[in-house]
C-alpha cells in the first residue's frame, strides 16, 4: 500500500514534487520559486483533499532540484510543505521547510515610511515566532510585519 502511494506521488521520472502547499498559496509558491519563468516542465493541482490541511495544492516539476535556501524561501506561505526528491520514479528524499533566521528580498516591509519602500533597497528581515505566527522584523526600520500582513514582492 505504501509503495503504491509513493508511486502515485512520483509520477514524474526525475525532479521534485512539492506537497502540502495550502491551496490559496499555490501561485505564491510558484512565484517565490521562480517557476513561472525558466521553461520548466511542470504540472500542478489545487483544492486536493488533505488529512493535514483540509485541502492542499501540489506541484510536480520535471528535472528540477532545489537548494536548501530555495526550499526555505516558501516557509512564510507554506510552512508545512514537503519537497519530495524523485529519482527514477522513486522518492529518494523528503525535505521539510524550515523557517530561515533571515529572509531577504522576498517580502515587502509593511511600514510605508521604511526606506525599502522608497529606494531600491533589497528588503531584509529577521524571523521570530509570535502568538499569531511568524513575525518579521525589518533590518532597516526595525518595525514588525506579521504573517497576516505579508506582501510577497513579485518577480522573485
Amino acid at each position, binding site marked *: 500500500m505504501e509503495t503504491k502511494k509513493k508511486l502515485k506521488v512520483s509520477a514524474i521520472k526525475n525532479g521534485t514534487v512539492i506537497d502540502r502547499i495550502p491551496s490559496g498559496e499555490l501561485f505564491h509558491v510558484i512565484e517565490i520559486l521562480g517557476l513561472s519563468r525558466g521553461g520548466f516542465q511542470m504540472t500542478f493541482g489545487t483544492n486536493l483533499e488533505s488529512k493535514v490541511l483540509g485541502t492542499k495544492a501540489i506541484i510536480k516539476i520535471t528535472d528540477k532540484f532545489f537548494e536548501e535556501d530555495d526550499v526555505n524561501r516558501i516557509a512564510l506561505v507554506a510552512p508545512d510543505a514537503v519537497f519530495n526528491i524523485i529519482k527514477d520514479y522513486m522518492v529518494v528524499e523528503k525535505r521539510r521547510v524550515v523557517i530561515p533566521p533571515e529572509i531577504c528580498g522576498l517580502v515587502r516591509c509593511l511600514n510605508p515610511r521604511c*526606506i525599502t519602500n522608497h529606494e531600491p533597497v533589497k528588503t531584509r528581515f529577521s524571523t521570530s515566532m509570535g502568538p499569531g505566527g511568524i513575525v518579521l522584523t525589518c533590518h532597516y*526600520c526595525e518595525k*514588525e510585519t506579521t504573517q497576516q500582513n505579508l506582501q510577497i514582492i513579485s518577480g522573485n
Partner: protein
Amino acid sequence: MKSLISINDFNKEEMLHVLDLAEKYEAEPNCPIFNDKVIACIFFEPSTRTRLSFEAAASRLGARVIGFASLAATSIAKGESLKDTIKMVSNYADMIVMRHHLDGAARYASEIAGCPVINAGDGANQHPTQTLLDMYSIRKTQGTLENMSITMVGDLKYGRTVHSLLQAMSHFNPRFHFVSCPELAIPAEYRHFLDSRNIPYTEHHTLEGQISNTDILYMTRIQQERFQDPMEYERVKNLMSLDASMLTDTKPNLRILHPLPRIKEIATNVDDRPEAYYFEQARNGVFTRMGIFTYLMNQ
C-alpha cells in the same frame, strides 16, 4: 569600523564607556584630538539642537565639519538618490552624521558608506545619541542608572526617543510608568519587549497622581498632526501637561527631562524649579556626542 544606528548597536559596556568619556569631556571640553579629521553632518530634514550640538562636539574635538542643513541647496533636490549622495559624501569625510525623514535610512546609509555613520534620527525609528545623552543626564542627576522609576509622558507611540530610552534602560533594572492617551499608547512590541525581560510597567491616561514616586519624569511633545479632531488634541494635551502646581509631594531626587523642543506640555513656571533639567540635558548633548565621536573614531 563601527556605526551607531540603533541603540541596540551598543551593549551595556559600550554605553557606559561612552558616558565615561562624556564625563571626561564635561570636565575638559576642549580636546582637539581629531584635528586631522573631517566630519560630515548631513541633515535631510530640519534640526536645531541635534545638528548644532553635533557640530559643537566635532569642533571641540578639533575636527572640521562639512555638510548641509536642508535639502534645498543639494543635488537631492535635483532627484539624486540617497545611495549616490552617501557614496559621494563618504569620499569626503571620515565620519557621517545623518538625519533623514525615512525610517531605516541611516542603516541603509551605513551599508553604503565607506566610513562610520551616526544616526541623528531616522523618521520615527531611532535617535540613539539622544538616548545616550538622556542616560548621561539620568546618571549625572541620580548618581546611578540602576533601579530608576521612570515615568514617560505624551506621545509614546511615535516618540522615537521614548522607544530607544526604554530599550537602553532595560539593562539597568528600571520600573516604567507610561502616561498617554489610548491613541498614543506605547506600542505592543515594546510592551512585549518589557514582558520578555520581566521589567515592570504600568499604564495611565492622565499625569495627575503619577509623579510622587518617580525619579525621572520624561516628558515628550504631542504633535497636533497626530489628531484628526482638534478638540481631542486639546483635551489630551491638557491631560498630559505639567504645571509647577503639580510638583508637590515629589521625591527630592526627581528630575524632569524633555528631548525638546517643548511646546506647551511643560508650563514655563516649571523652568525655574530645581526639578527642571531639560536645558542642562540639552547641554549634555555636546559632551555625550564628543564621547560617541571618540569611541567610534577609535574603532
